[in-house]
């Protein structure tokens, strides 16, 4: 896998988000104008039926930037790795 370019970010998907999208991770070149997690979700949703299904209810989607939990309003600038997943159910 090649190193991400400065504008690129690694996206990871877990549990049913992963299953619906059909992939574990990908390197994405994000278009200009996407500043927050919420905006990134809205953009991902337009990328195909799997994405649309995975992100149809943003309220049940959780996100992490560089392995730290974040909110939908959190800015993504500088992120190397962004993960999307359902509410956690460990323990």
């Amino acid at each position, binding site marked *: 896998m090649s190193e991400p370019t400065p504008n690129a970010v690694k996206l*990871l998907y*877990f*549990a*049913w988000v992963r299953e619906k999208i059909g992939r574990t991770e990908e390197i994405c070149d994000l278009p200009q104008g996407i500043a927050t997690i919420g905006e990134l979700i809205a953009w991902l949703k337009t990328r195909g039926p799997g994405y649309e299904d995975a992100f149809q209810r943003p309220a049940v989607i959780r996100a*992490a930037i560089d*392995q*730290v*939990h974040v909110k939908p309003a959190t800015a993504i600038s500088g992120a190397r790795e962004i*993960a999307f*997943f*359902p*509410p*956690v*159910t*460990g*323990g």
Partner: protein
Amino acid sequence: MAVRVQAQDFDVTAEISALTRGHLGIGAVVTFTGLVRGESQGETLTSMTLEHYPGMTEAELARVEAEALERWPLAASLIVHRIGTLNPGDNIVLVVTASPHRHAAIEAAAFLMDYLKSRAPFWKKETTASGAGTWVDARDGDAAALDRWKHPSKASE
């Protein structure tokens, strides 16, 4: 002061011994073990598979443990969480806390479980006798359990 994510089982006695050996100030050790139950919403469970986010899981567990160490005078603590496919009756998670006196150990163990359940990136998929695989939904009760630690005067009761 350790967290581990592993496929293999754990032995509670061995973990307690490793944690307390030589620490003669410890008067109380509490363990919490989570087990796979044999049914889910009335259906017989045949197995459960645990997915996790490698890297973040360990980091998040370490943050949860650090928070417990800030709140209670613990002499030692441990979190072990299993991943992969487990059967009914199998161990899932182990939390161990050790302290000079019992109330700190008990409260810290309860806190670690509540925080771990709400923050550590694990996801459970259950397979039932009918063959269906279903992702477990997060429980509202877990969020409520978390809230009580935000009011120190209540949590310490």
